[in-house]
């Protein structure tokens, strides 16, 4: 792939905590982890998606002014950031595994519309839906 979306970023309250969550618990891999002074460019990848990076950033100066950074921290903590969806082969099995590792689930696996989905949050408050891939004949 030469064209397409390469990085989509999330705001988190703490990059070390987020790294422990996305890599240590969800099983993502670190793609880039580079510091420049107080700034840290950190991206992770799903092991099956080498073309896509999830950026993990903190709202901070100099990108944001102090008041805006504080507002963003509040928005993240209130769970008001946009939806995130993780597709898995087996929702219930993944739920059991992640829950045992301490992931904060907001919704147990539910079967609806021919699939199974569950919900969890990262430590910062970002909400994920975990949806079982439909077994399509197509």
């Amino acid at each position: 792939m030469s064209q397409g979306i390469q990085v989509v970023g999330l705001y988190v309250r703490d990059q070390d905590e987020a790294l422990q969550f996305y890599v240590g618990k969800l099983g993502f891999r670190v793609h880039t982890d580079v510091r420049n002074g107080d700034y840290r460019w950190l991206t992770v990848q799903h092991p099956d998606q080498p073309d896509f990076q999830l950026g993990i950033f903190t709202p901070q100066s100099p990108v944001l002014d102090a008041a805006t950074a504080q507002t963003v921290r509040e928005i993240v903590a209130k769970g008001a950031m946009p939806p995130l969806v993780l597709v898995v082969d087996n929702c219930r099995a993944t739920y059991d595994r992640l829950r045992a590792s301490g992931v904060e689930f907001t919704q147990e696996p539910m079967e609806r519309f021919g699939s199974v989905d569950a919900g969890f949050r990262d430590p910062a408050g970002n909400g994920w839906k975990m949806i079982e891939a439909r077994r399509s004949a197509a």
Partner: protein
Amino acid sequence: MGTGQDPELLRRLLRAKDRMDAASHQNWPVPRLARVSGVSEAHFARSFKDAFGVPPHRYLLTRRIERAKALLRDTELSITEIAFETGWSSLGTFGRTFHDVTGTSPGDLRAREKATAYQLERVPTCFVRAAHRPDLTIAVSEKRRRETGVRRDESRKEAEVP
């Protein structure tokens, strides 16, 4: 602008909101919610309202109505079954509150929704739900008062959720 609340507190208040989302049919008295958030009972309701714009029990009510609407639309459960399934202890309270919030009765809503074809399979269900959530910015009793133009007996109990 932010509300000036500590993000760590907001994260814990979000946990109470999540718990109501996950089990809106249950009773969520303030002490239970305060415990989930690690906030004192005295401060919980105010902190929640500052964070999410509505008092906790009104939030719960919107979730119950939203869920009732989904069940009316997507299942063949009777209205009585839906009332109890979504946490109401009386069919009368359910019907009245449903009407106050949505402007229609459960039966009429069902009839209308069944007549409309939906193409929502491609949108994750939870996001569809959120889009159908009633936007309840005022108390149900106040909404009722404004719509009827009649000043009700003040002793009448607020129809918010216990």
